């Protein structure tokens, strides 16, 4: 745009300051770049958890800690996540309620989550999230065994 104007005017202004047109062109290009690559900054959040000793962590101190162990199994039934906690099959809301009802001080507890191989990660993170709600900071995974643990 700047060049065209410059040519049409026979270089009247450009003759004085030809660099101005280059500068404006570069400026437009930079603006274009930022407009095209623009993405609103969203602060990513994280859910902090500590893997408990044993299970996924090779440790000798497994038998030494006095924490109460809770086991939760995650599976899928008709496209929805199902959680087995204390031999009861519940949905996520049910799990939240049961954890809130049965866990007093979260620091005394440790949760081990088992799952079917094809369960999506989002369903298991929902368990970690439920544990965080009741202040349980140690959540580990029980690795798949047998046929489910494909090579």
């Amino acid at each position, binding site marked *: 745009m700047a060049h065209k*104007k410059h040519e*049409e*005017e*026979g270089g*009247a202004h450009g003759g004085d300051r030809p660099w101005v047109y280059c500068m*404006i062109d570069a*400026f*437009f290009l*930079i*603006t274009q770049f*930022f*407009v095209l*690559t*623009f*993405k*609103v*900054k*969203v*602060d*990513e*959040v*994280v*859910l*902090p*958890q*500590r*893997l408990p*000793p044993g299970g*996924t*962590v*090779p*440790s*000798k*101190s497994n038998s030494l800690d006095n924490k109460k162990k809770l086991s939760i199994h*995650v599976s899928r039934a008709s496209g929805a996540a199902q959680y087995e906690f204390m031999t009861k099959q519940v949905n996520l809301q049910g799990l939240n309620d049961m954890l809130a009802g049965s866990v007093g001080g979260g620091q005394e507890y440790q949760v081990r989550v088992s*799952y*079917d*191989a*094809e*369960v*999506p*990660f*989002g369903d*298991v*993170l*929902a368990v*970690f*999230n439920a544990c*965080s*709600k009741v202040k349980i900071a140690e959540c580990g*995974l029980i*690795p*798949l065994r047998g046929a*489910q*643990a*494909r*090579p």
Partner: protein
Amino acid sequence: MSMKKVEMNQVEVDMIPLIDIISLLLMFLIIVGDTAATANSIQMRLPRASEAMTDKELKEKNVRLEGRIIVQVTNKDGVYRAVVNNKSYDLVAQGSNKLLIEYLDEQVQYQIGRGLAQKDASGAVNIPVKLRIPEDAPMADVERVVMTAARVGLVNVQYAAEPTFGGRKH
């Protein structure tokens, strides 16, 4: 033709307001935009977690962020792979990818060697590891990443999640 040229010569376009407006637009885009983060982080749909915290909130709660290692899981043609510092690694059963273990161990030893991290008696290292895993990744692959981290003593796991606006109870 010549008349038209004469008329065009008489028109003076004032560029200064235009440049001012574009400068303001440019400044806005630079400040609000997120070009650096998108260059390093893989685009993925993260799971939602109402209890997840921002880095600022974690600092307030004295959760360690220094020296954090970021492991991302990406799906390429239906195969999930781990990406650390733009290098891609296979996910092997039992988390036993030697290359990835060696790389993570190198990072851990470097930080321990410089006195930036400690390893306790059980082998756990206090360096945090941020796991960016898509919400639809199957657990068979996710456990491989977690086990790899656990093998080098990285037990302080921070699972990346999408923020839930208004869903969090303080």
